[in-house]
Structures are given as C-alpha cells and as structure tokens.
C-alpha cells in the first residue's frame, strides 16, 4: 500500500504500523512525535496503530527556532 510519510510516498506492506513507517525513514527512538491523518499517535501506540492505503504520516522533531 502507498502511505505518505512526511510528504513522500512510500510503499509499505499491507498491515504496516506507525512503527514500521518510522523504521523506513530511520527515525530516532526519542525526540520525535507522530501524527497520522492529523491526529497525534502516542508513543505507546506506535507498534499497534495500523496504517491504511493513502494515509498521511507526519514525523516531527525539535529544530532551532523561536
């Protein structure tokens, strides 16, 4: 299935979870947060939250600013 991760389309196996999408982009284990289709998915739920075809995953981290 195709899922958009931080604006880039990625081919993931059917049934992939948030944790699988994070592995694909080599996300660090801490210091990041995830939203799927505009809703925050808490860290504890990354491994159990399944993604759907056409879903949008945003992975954010802290950068210099403000």
């Amino acid at each position, binding site marked *: 299935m195709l899922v958009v991760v*931080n*604006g880039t389309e990625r081919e993931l196996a059917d049934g992939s979870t948030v944790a699988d999408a994070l592995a694909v*982009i*080599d*996300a*660090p284990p*801490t*210091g*990041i*947060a*995830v*939203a799927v289709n*505009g809703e*925050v998915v*808490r*860290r504890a739920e990354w491994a159990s939250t399944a993604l759907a075809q056409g879903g949008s995953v*945003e*992975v*954010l*981290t*802290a*950068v*210099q*600013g*403000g």
Partner: protein
Amino acid sequence: MDDPFVIADREFGSRLIMGTGGAANLAVLERSLLAAGTELTTVAMRRMDAAGGTGVLDLLRRLGIEPLPNTAGCRTAAEAVLTARLAREALETNWVKLEVVADERTLLPDSVELLDAAQQLVDDGFVVLPYTNDDPVLALRLEEVGCAAVMPLGSPIGTGLGIRNPHNIELIVSRAGVPVILDAGIGTASDAAQAMELGCSAVLLATAVTRAQDPERMAAAMRGAVEAGRSALLAGRIPQRFWAQASSPAR
C-alpha cells in the same frame, strides 16, 4: 533564591529566555546560551528531515537548559493545538510557547485564533505561554482562560525595533496576575533593560543575539541588561523632573 522568577510551579534563576533560531551553527549557539545564562530556551517543531538530527535538543539537554517548544509557523488555532500536542509527545513537556501568526510579512499574532488555541490547550492540561500583541485587554483575556504567563511583543519578530509602545507594556504589567515576558522586537541591550524597568518579569529574545556580529558577546550583554533592568526596577528610580535639581549643596 534571592529574586526568583516563577512560572506555574517552576522557579528560574535567570530572567532571560532564549530562542535558538538564526544561530549559524550549534557551536555558536552553545557559547551564546552559556553566555546568556538562560535556563529556558525555545525550539520549533518541524518535519524530521533526512539528516534525522535532534541536535538542538541534545544540546539543550547537555547544557541542562529546559526546552520550551513553540508553535511557530501555525496560522490557525487547530494547527497550533496539534503542534503543541506533538511537541508534548516529542519533548515530554506540557509547556508550550503558543504562537499563532496572521501573516508572514508582519508575523503579528492573530488574536482571535490565539485566544481560541490558548483556551483549548489550557483545558488539555498545558502550561501555556502565549506570544501576544501588546494589547492590555487581550493580555487579561489570555490570563482569564488560564495562561501561565503573557508574552507581549515589543515590536514585530526579528525587527529589532525595541519596545514601540512602552505604555501598553506598563498597562499590561500593572494589571497582570501572571508573569509578563517581553517577547519579540528586542534589538540591543538597552531594549532588554527597558523591558525589565517597565516591570516585565523576563525577556525572551533570539535574533538580537543569534544574528549579532558577535553572538556570544551580545548574549552576555543581554544577560547584564536583564539583571540591571531588574535591579533598577527593584531599586525604585527617581521621578522625572522638568527643572534641574542641584545635586551639590548650595554653600
């Protein structure tokens, strides 16, 4: 602590809150933050890029400086609330510097969206520090919905124009039951000192240091200015007079 600065339930020794935006690199930023003596420093939330760096966060942690996530770049209450919730997840803090700006040219706060977002985030358990216009009425409204501080601008972000309406800042301070933090517009040390003399509890600045020709030196200047301004306020300045008053005895 002699004259502690308290927000919500936390006590700070430094009244200078720093931003990290605009620093040429992390080494310069580190020296600047150390020279500023800050204990609370803002970061922005953005998409993780290919480099995957969390360098600024690692730097703050190493220096023992509390990161304060902001919602910079958000234009609506909905965007700001989502960004704050993501920041809470990523940084494991329920503190947020709430920014909701109206347009890119002025970066002035959108007061309607700001108040809406502030209410939602307070209800969701956040310690909300809103970046606001220098509007004494709005400052009260933000306090009423439960913000832990109010952070009026001196002038637009990054302009270095200083405090354009000192009387408004005094009005805000005179009625506030929460700390007032002068945020945005500081250009040089005298602006920071003025904010403190007007009664602000703290100053938040970034550009004035990070884009100065010598950021580390300017950070030290800002630290001194904030301390001097605070001391001058507590010391109680003389009234201003129209005519001269001799300071030497007449005979």
